[in-house]
């Protein structure tokens, strides 16, 4: 048996809103091995970000975890007391956000923002407050070098807005990796970046992942990114996982019509754009969902039989799909 | 009307204003205080019909008569009488005329001037903007009450002078808001489209931009009206408002001060009237602001 780092079982995260109970994550299960890179794909509102906010313990009122368990290195995280959770966050599990410009505090220098995370977690720092700060400062500089900031000494005490978009993203990654976490959750790490810089940032993450031997969860809506960097992939739709498996297998032979839609939309946007139109007002639609396939209304394969609860079923080695009529594209499709 | 103009009308978000007003009307609290405010306006307009007595009818036999529920009170003079034996309730009812008249006329004058100046500055730009903005900067350099007091010191107290003294500076506030909004809207597509169609400047200003600044102007003018009413009452309190014997709330509070150790009702009731009116307008304004703020839409 391989070394499992993160195990999510039947996670259900809800938000108690004025419009009713919104189930943003509904029965998500997945596991992640040491050193593995898992891609999580889905549109905005598919529940992918909420799933990993649940892992980070960052679900705030009116949201709450209604059911399920999350274990990180055999430790249960659901219901973990806040202090213990805080010690875990940033140290063992780290997260980067979509846009570094908004994720970095505009009122503090970059050095401050790296040093504070080291001071909060790094037990190897010794001596007086001042001595600790000095050591943290050196480590922070190391980290900035690692993420490829040219001449970090001169940029160290700059404010976030003084950096370019790509450099800011690197700074954020440096903060996340400062304590050498064992799991990195990278939420849309490239969406806010220019195409040319996207590849650099992803290569950076991949390189550090190898160096530190950490596991990575790459949340994205871009299957192209997943194809290049991830070992396995999970496709989410409307709060549920609809397909999972090894990346190459899923991409070569997608089983769920939604995955196919996503894949088809990459090269030929003009033809199939209609099928991946963004879901209008997704979140409110997650209130009081009827027991039926959630993709039904947009699916060309929908049949009366789909009007029932659909469970995940095996469809190949290490592969699962949530569809009664799985298959490769072409069958009855355009 | 040309085809182009009719087509341009469609995307204009006039309905947004209507939707906002519906949202506003759905708040019970706002509607309640809107009714209170309207009640005050009705009271001011119909003062001669409502007031039980002549507000200036003095009678020293009734001097400092307490409110009806206290010993020595009389239900004919519910809130008691002042130092000259005048009926306090009647004076409060007549006093609402001053507060509301001055509040409304200052805001109407100031909003009209401010909106036009703001539109001109924001839309015409160039030297018009420079002149108006400089003037705004300079007038903003004066604390409000001091400016008004200095003007009244110069022109003497009186209804007209008070309205002018307050409006001289008041227009600056809507002007700034409108200028900002206009600058923000001129870049918007439908205005650019109208410009490309060759619509005249004044036409664009009045037909395209004006409807869009309606909401912020409404919010600002209600907040400011509440403020102007307090300012007028403060002027009256200092003896710089409408001159006696005309009843005004601020002056009634000032007159009652010398009696406050025993005859507390002289100052208390007119003060309550100011508080209630100003509070109502502020709640309405807050309701409008919430309704217009896109953050609250969902």
């Amino acid at each position, binding site marked *: 048996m391989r070394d499992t780092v993160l195990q999510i079982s039947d996670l259900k995260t809800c938000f108690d809103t004025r419009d009713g109970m919104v189930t943003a994550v509904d029965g998500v299960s997945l596991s992640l091995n040491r050193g593995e890179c898992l891609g999580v794909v889905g549109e905005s509102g598919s529940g992918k970000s909420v799933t990993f906010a649940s892992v980070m313990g960052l679900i705030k009122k009116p949201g709450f975890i209604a059911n399920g368990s999350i274990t990180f290195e055999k430790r249960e995280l659901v219901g973990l007391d806040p202090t213990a959770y805080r010690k875990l966050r940033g140290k063992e599990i780290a997260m980067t956000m979509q846009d570094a410009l908004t994720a970095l505090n505009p009122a503090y220098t970059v050095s401050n923002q790296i040093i504070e*995370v080291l001071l909060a977690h790094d037990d190897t720092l010794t001596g007086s407050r001042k001595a600790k700060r000095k050591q943290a400062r050196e480590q922070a500089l190391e980290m900035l070098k690692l993420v490829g900031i040219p001449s970090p000494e001169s940029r160290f005490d700059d404010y976030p807005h003084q950096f370019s978009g790509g450099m800011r993203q690197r700074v954020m990654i440096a903060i996340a990796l400062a304590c050498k976490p064992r799991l990195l959750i990278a939420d849309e790490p490239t969406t806010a970046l220019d195409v040319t810089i996207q590849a650099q940032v992803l290569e950076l993450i991949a390189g550090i992942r190898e160096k530190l031997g950490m596991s990575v969860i790459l949340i994205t809506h871009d299957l192209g990114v997943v194809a290049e960097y991830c070992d396995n992939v999970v496709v989410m739709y409307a709060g549920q996982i609809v397909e999972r498996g090894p990346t190459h297998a899923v991409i070569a032979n997608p089983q769920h019509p939604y995955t196919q839609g996503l894949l088809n939309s990459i090269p030929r946007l003009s033809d199939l754009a209609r099928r991946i139109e963004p879901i209008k007002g997704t979140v409110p639609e997650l209130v009081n969902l009827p027991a039926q396939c959630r993709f039904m209304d947009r699916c060309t394969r929908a049949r009366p039989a789909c009007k029932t609860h659909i469970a995940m079923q095996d469809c190949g080695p290490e592969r699962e799909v949530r569809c009664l009529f799985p298959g490769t594209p072409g069958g009855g499709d355009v | 009307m040309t085809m182009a103009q009719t087509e341009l009308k469609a995307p204009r978000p006039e309905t947004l204003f209507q939707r906002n007003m519906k949202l506003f009307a759905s708040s019970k609290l706002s509607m309640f205080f809107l009714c209170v405010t309207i009640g005050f306006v009705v009271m001011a307009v119909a003062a001669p019909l409502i007031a039980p007595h002549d507000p200036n009818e003095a009678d020293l036999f009734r001097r400092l008569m307490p409110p009806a529920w206290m010993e020595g009170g009389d239900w004919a003079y519910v809130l008691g009488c002042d130092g000259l034996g005048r009926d306090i309730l009647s004076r409060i009812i007549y006093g609402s005329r001053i507060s509301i008249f001055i509040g409304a006329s200052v805001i109407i004058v100031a909003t009209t001037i401010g909106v036009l100046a703001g539109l001109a500055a924001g839309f015409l730009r160039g030297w018009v903007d420079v002149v108006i903005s400089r003037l705004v900067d300079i007038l903003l350099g004066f604390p409000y009450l001091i400016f008004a007091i200095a003007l009244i010191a110069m022109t003497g107290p009186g209804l007209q002078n008070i309205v002018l003294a307050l409006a001289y500076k008041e227009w600056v506030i809507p002007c700034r808001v409108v200028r900002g909004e206009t600058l923000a809207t001129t870049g918007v597509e439908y205005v650019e489209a109208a410009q490309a169609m060759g619509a005249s400047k004044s036409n664009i200003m009045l037909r395209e931009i004006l409807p869009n600044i309606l909401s912020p102007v409404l919010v600002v003018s209600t907040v400011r009206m509440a403020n102007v009413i307090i300012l007028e009452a403060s002027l009256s309190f200092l003896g710089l408002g409408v001159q006696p014997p005309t009843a005004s709330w601020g002056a009634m509070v000032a007159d009652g001060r010398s009696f406050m150790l025993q005859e507390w009702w002289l100052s208390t009731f007119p003060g309550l009237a100011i508080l209630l009116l100003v509070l109502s307008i502020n709640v309405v304004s807050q309701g409008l602001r919430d309704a217009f703020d896109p953050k609250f839409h969902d």
Partner: protein
Amino acid sequence: MSLGKFIERLLQLIPVLLGVSVIVFVMMLFTPGDPVDIMLGDQHVTEEMEQALRRDMGLDLPPHERFFKFLGNAMTGDFGLSYYHRQPVAEVIASRLPATIELSLAALIFALLVSIPLGVLAAVRKNSFLDRLATVTSLFGVSLPGFWFGILLILFFAVNMRWLPVSGRAGFESEVAPITHLLLIDSLLRGRIDAFWDALKHLILPTITLGLPMASILMRVTRASMLDVLNRDYITFAEAKGLSRTRILVKHALKNALIPTVTVAAIETGSLLGGNMVVETVFGWPGLGRLVVESIFVRNYPLIQAAVLFYAVTYVMLNFFADILYTMLNPRVKL
């Protein structure tokens, strides 16, 4: 912010200050009545003496020359004589200023101390009972007419409960030799605890009356900006970094949330100046505001003119400092 930018900003004040002076001058130009007549009052003087006085005051000059004379005098602090007080205007104002500064500072401190913690708490516990209470209180705070509220406070705390004095600044004023002219500080510096308590008791009610509207406005601003900041990504990211709740609230949220509060506070300090007139009148506080009100009734125009100019210059400077403060707190904004 560089010194060059600072000086550039400072230079931009000149046209505003000049415009303010023009307006003050024009106001007085149109003041009804002849200044010499007003000044002389009932005194009987010869025609020549009157002419001489007129020439002395520069009243025979054309308006633009009178303006430059006025401006030149104002810059050297010469605002003429206050005949009512038989003293130079500048001296009269200077003697009343400390009381006004003390009251304004006390009101500012009161407003900040009340509004910031309350605004932060209301935002952190949004929709709680405390939040609702704070919102309703602030609505009353901006709707209460200060002069009336002051009277109610006197009625309750001074007359009925006898906890605090009814009016005035202090009973010990003459006994404490001035250092800063601020009684609270002077009495402490001189080691006169009795005088300090007395001054403090006199200060409480006027401070609350003057500071309440400002506290209400600042509370709302703080609450709104704190709510805004708490929803920002950098707060989530700070949480993801595993920082303590206190550190997140104080260091990450508050520093950003206070930017609008501080800016509004600096601007609102200007409106404290206006409120002074009313509050000083209600509480018999011997400050500049009451002096101005008194001067209107005795038509002491040179004093009104000087006071209005003084208020305006202070106000403009406060707004200037608000701007500077804003840029200092907010590294993203470049002047």
